[in-house]
């Protein structure tokens, strides 16, 4: 209050210039990047589970500590480290497949950054089938003539081949899904947040002013 108007007159546009420049510069440097939210994505391909970890929007987590846990018991099944692209792959542990475990994949990148992905058993078990027992349709084959046996064998091979092809075709789709499942900050989020802040402090000011008036 005291010397404001005086200073304002004395220091005209001179000091607004640099500030405006600085603010514009910062806004220019500002990308919609949220550099430290860690997202993990995992999918199965045959007997292998691939995981990909990155900081939103697109910085791979290098050297992150990966832990694969059984969701129910919390037991650690295996651990590993992400590579330069933030990727880490592992073969599905036999016990996980046998007990149909839901896998919790936790990636920790130090400094308090952590992300996780839940891979449900039904998402990775189908890929295992060809290597495991015969598929269910082949079960009633025991009573059939020998000719049908060759047919089921053919069918099995066909199924295997199809699975492989589908896996290959689906991988880019999966990556696209992973990309889309990351929730990005939007302008409405930012503006909404600013509005909330003004509202909360406005409310506080309102109650303060009422309290002062009638004590």
């Amino acid at each position, binding site marked *: 209050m005291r010397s404001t108007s005086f200073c304002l007159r004395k220091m005209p546009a001179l*000091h607004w210039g640099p500030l405006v420049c600085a603010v514009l510069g910062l806004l220019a440097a500002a*990308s919609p990047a949220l550099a430290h939210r860690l997202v993990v994505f995992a999918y199965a391909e045959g007997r292998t589970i691939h995981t990909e970890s990155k900081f939103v929007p697109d910085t791979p987590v290098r050297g992150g500590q990966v832990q694969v846990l059984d969701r129910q018991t919390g037991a650690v099944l295996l651990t590993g480290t992400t590579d330069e692209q933030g990727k880490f792959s592992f073969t599905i542990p036999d016990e996980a497949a046998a007990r149909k475990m839901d896998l919790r994949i936790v990636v920790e990148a*130090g400094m*308090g950054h952590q992300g996780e992905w839940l891979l449900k058993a039904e998402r990775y078990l189908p890929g295992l089938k060809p290597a495991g027992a015969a598929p269910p349709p082949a079960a009633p084959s025991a009573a059939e003539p020998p000719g049908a046996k060759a047919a089921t064998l053919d069918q099995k091979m066909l199924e295997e081949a199809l699975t492989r092809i589908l896996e290959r075709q689906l991988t880019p789709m999966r990556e696209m899904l992973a990309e889309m499942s990351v929730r990005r*900050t939007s302008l409405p989020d930012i503006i909404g947040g600013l509005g*909330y802040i003004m509202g909360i402090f406005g409310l506080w000011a309102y109650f303060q002013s009422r309290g002062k008036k009638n004590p």
Partner: protein
Amino acid sequence: MHISEGVLSPAVLAGGAALAVVGTAIGLKKMDNAAIPRVALLSAAFFVASLIHVPVGPVGLHLVLNGLMGLLVGWPAVPAILIALLLQALLFQFGGLTVLGVNTVVMAAPAVICFWLFRPLLRRPGAPAAVGAFACGAVAILLSGLLVAAALLTTGQAFLQVARLVVLAHIPVMLVEGVITLFIFFFLQKVRPEMLEGIYA
């Protein structure tokens, strides 16, 4: 600086929440009516600052502005940071609701500490004030880094190792924030000195 959900133990989370509640109470008590718009403005600035990306280092970092906040408002920085962090957790998924208390302490405690630490310097004109303003911005980040390391201590991570990592990673942010705080301090001193009355009071 935001610690993710699911990293810390319940004891640390509870401790952080308790400290945050106490700090918020003190901050609200110390915030007189005239200061409310100023605190609101800084809360908004803090809320948005996290979106300003400093493209350095392995992870990429963002501004925090807690030093500037402490410099301008002192104790009321705690409720201001609490509200900004709550909205960041809800809207941006930064940190999380359970870690809100710890994250508030990590960022608000340095703001208040720097306010008391550098107030004597800031009151003096010329070079000491400049040093004080720069240090206020830089030291607040440094202290936040150390607090992050301290919070992670209970998860079994070695304090010195984490502290070194966090502090090294934040050196660019410390410099940037020091310069920004210095710049805004002098700008306000000339254009809006009444915004700085917390320092001279």
